[in-house]
């Protein structure tokens, strides 16, 4: 049986002390251990950004790809072998900015993978520029007079695209987050968790305390994530109160299940049949 320690590695962590990413990393390890997963059976895929470095700080298979491109890489890997247990680590800039089109289309396909978006509402790796989720009006080094574009609402967009598993986590609640990750990984289909986290270095507005004051657990209110329109309503809550937990959940056939001819057998495990191919070549 795998334990949390099996996922530890000796690679030096490069995040700032106090970064919300540490709690996300911990929650992932907790979730994997609780699910009895071993490092050999896991594939983490990431794009570029502080969040995308996550796979390096864990012992398992990993592919750290290009900015914004984790989802198409993950889609290809899943088609090649739908038995792979794939989890994508991305950030607000990586997923909603550079990779926005891929985000929309991964949901449309309903690829059976788990997406964790580490959403600190700022660009960390490039040192503090506004991200798609930075709130209007926030002043940064590059947006000196405040952000003038509307903030991107990932949950509402995911719902509009009929994403089957939409959740929000908070790096300040590891127990809840670990549970959400387990639910997402068990879910058959595209499962996304937008995880609020503070950036201690560059986001002086949405601090740990700022989030802590506002977040509440939907599950504790008796909310049932099965009402599509209600979920939309919840996705609009911000400012005073920020809901966390599973916002919407509805299973639909996953991408590889919809591909005719693939069946239950993975693409990689099929056999090459030269005699049959030759009949087409003749």
């Amino acid at each position, binding site marked *: 049986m795998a334990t949390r320690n099996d996922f530890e590695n000796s690679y030096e962590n490069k995040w700032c002390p106090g970064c919300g990413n540490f709690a996300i990393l911990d929650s992932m390890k907790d979730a994997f251990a609780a699910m009895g997963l071993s490092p050999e059976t896991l594939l983490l895929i990431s794009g570029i950004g502080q969040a995308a470095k996550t796979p390096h700080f864990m012992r398992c298979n990993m592919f750290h790809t290009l900015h914004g*491109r984790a989802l*198409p890489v993950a889609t290809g890997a899943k088609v090649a072998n739908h038995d792979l247990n794939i989890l994508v680590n991305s950030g607000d800039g990586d997923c909603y900015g550079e990779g926005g089109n891929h985000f929309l289309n991964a949901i449309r396909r309903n690829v059976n993978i788990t997406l964790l978006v580490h959403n600190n509402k700022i660009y960390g790796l490039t040192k503090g520029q506004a991200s798609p989720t930075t709130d209007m009006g926030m002043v940064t080094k590059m947006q000196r007079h405040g952000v003038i574009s509307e903030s991107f609402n990932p949950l509402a967009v995911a719902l509009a695209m009929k994403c089957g598993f939409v959740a929000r986590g908070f790096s300040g609640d590891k127990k809840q987050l670990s549970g959400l990750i387990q639910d997402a990984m068990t879910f058959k289909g595209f499962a996304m968790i937008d995880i609020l986290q503070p950036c201690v270095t560059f986001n002086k507005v949405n601090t740990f305390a700022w989030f802590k004051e506002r977040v509440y657990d939907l599950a504790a209110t008796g909310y049932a994530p099965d009402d599509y329109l209600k979920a939309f309503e919840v996705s609009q809550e911000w400012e005073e109160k920020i809901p966390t937990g599973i916002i919407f959940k509805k299973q639909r056939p996953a991408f590889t299940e919809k591909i005719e001819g693939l069946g239950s057998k993975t693409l990689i495990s099929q056999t090459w049949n030269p005699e049959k191919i030759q009949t*087409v070549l003749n």
Partner: protein
Amino acid sequence: MDITVKIGGEAGQGIQTVGALISQACHSAGYYLLSVNDFESRIRGGHSFLQIRVSDAPITAPSHRVALLVALNRQTYDLHKQEVDSTGVILLNDAENRVEKNTVRLNTVRLNIDELAIQAGGKITANTVAAGAVLSLMGADFQLIETILTKRFSSKGDGVVQMNVAAARLGYESMSGVDFSAKTVMKSSAPKGKLINGSRAAALGALAADCRFAAFYPMSPATAIMGAFDSFSDDFPIVTEQAEDEIAAMNMIIGASYAGVRAMTSTSGGGFCLMTEALGLAAMAETPVVVINAQRPGPATGLPTRTSQSDLLFVINASQDEFPRFVFAPGAPHETFETMIRAFHLSDKYQAPAIILMDQYLCDSSFVAEKPFAVPEKIERFIVGDDQIENSSEYQRFALTADGVSPRALPCAGRALSLATGNEHLEDGHISEDQTNRKKMVEKRLAKFSGMRAEMRAPETYHEGAALMLASWGSSNGAVKEATLALNEMGVDAGCMNLVDIWPFPGEPVAEILSKSRRFVVVECNSYAQLGKLIAQETGVQYDHAVLKYDGRPIYPIDILNDLKDAGLA
């Protein structure tokens, strides 16, 4: 017999159908043929044409001399009547044209195609009427036409077959008494080989090479390759996915390949531009991929439905920094098929991307391929499992080796963990900014070059050692070969060589071939003489003259001959 039939009209008038019927009939009668499309980027209207060269001897290029012109509309007649030689015949669709009597050339036969089609049972059979008329002039046995029509329309029921046979007969009989000097006897016979275009040949190559995943974004002229490949998915374990853009397509195939299946994409220059970032990822993560760039003229949107050979230097250098890659440029369908199989093999063997340069002319033109298309004896994947790794729990994906190629284990396939990244990395796949490591990793990737170069085949030559050597790459080789033969007939001591394997550049054999000739001329469909520049860069040999065509149309032997005459070389 060696004649060219040209069929022109508006897009949507069924030019392709007339062409397909004539091609099939000639192919079934044992003739060699080469069918070239020339169409505009529109679905209806405008002016498009298709030309078929039919010969009883092997042919490798289209010809400029038209023997039979089928003008489905007035515009075709006006644009192309001058191309018809004095012994040729023009079939004029009178219903469409209403041409004044005194403007019609003597060898023009008026034919009310639509009227005959209605007589046969429906206007929809107009194309069959036209094909029947053309085949009658060429001397086809009617039985041959009937067989073709039955085969083509049998799935639509007896009624449709009968209607088309009647239409073909009306067209056929309308030509009785019309004199056509090249008329021959065409009967059902053993076909000379496979009638196939470059797109389908590429798809067959991918199938034979055990490619299982293809992702793409639609773009002319590359989409037909994906269409042909996808058609195999009904019977073979193949998945084709239309991605949201070329960026996604390229990244998807990298993901699929990383997870262990052979994967490819096809696009044209503009789409390739979007793929170049991920091309670098494939190189950095040492993940095999095969990418087809079906060239069309650029820059930007350029001429979407036309042909070009202008991305050679681009694909050799595409994506930032330096890394090893393969670049191939097959010239005809059989060569395309075999190149695809080699590209997948070599990409796996060296864990490096392979790029295939095709073009609209090669993709869309139908050739008779005489050599058989054979499935490879085996597929080597160059993948290791735990049992082949000494201490699999300590496995390092990018272990330093003498030849630069590290044993490749797949993710989640055993105890060995596969860690890959687009960042510079240590042997174990983790990010590293260490100077010494950086130098070692650059040298590791660079080390693959010598092995890859050793895999490159020397260009095929004809009359090696001739005083005048013509050099070409990719699909212009057919025209160059025929031009060379014509030069020889004119008494010019000429030879030619064609490069299929382009990168890593086979410098030694190329320099050796060129050293035997007094003069060397490059022939390419671009304006920079890209092959000429590449040869100079790689061998130090400077070309004496360049025959360049960059009007978006394929190069013809006559273009080469005229250019050489003007340059005083022929």
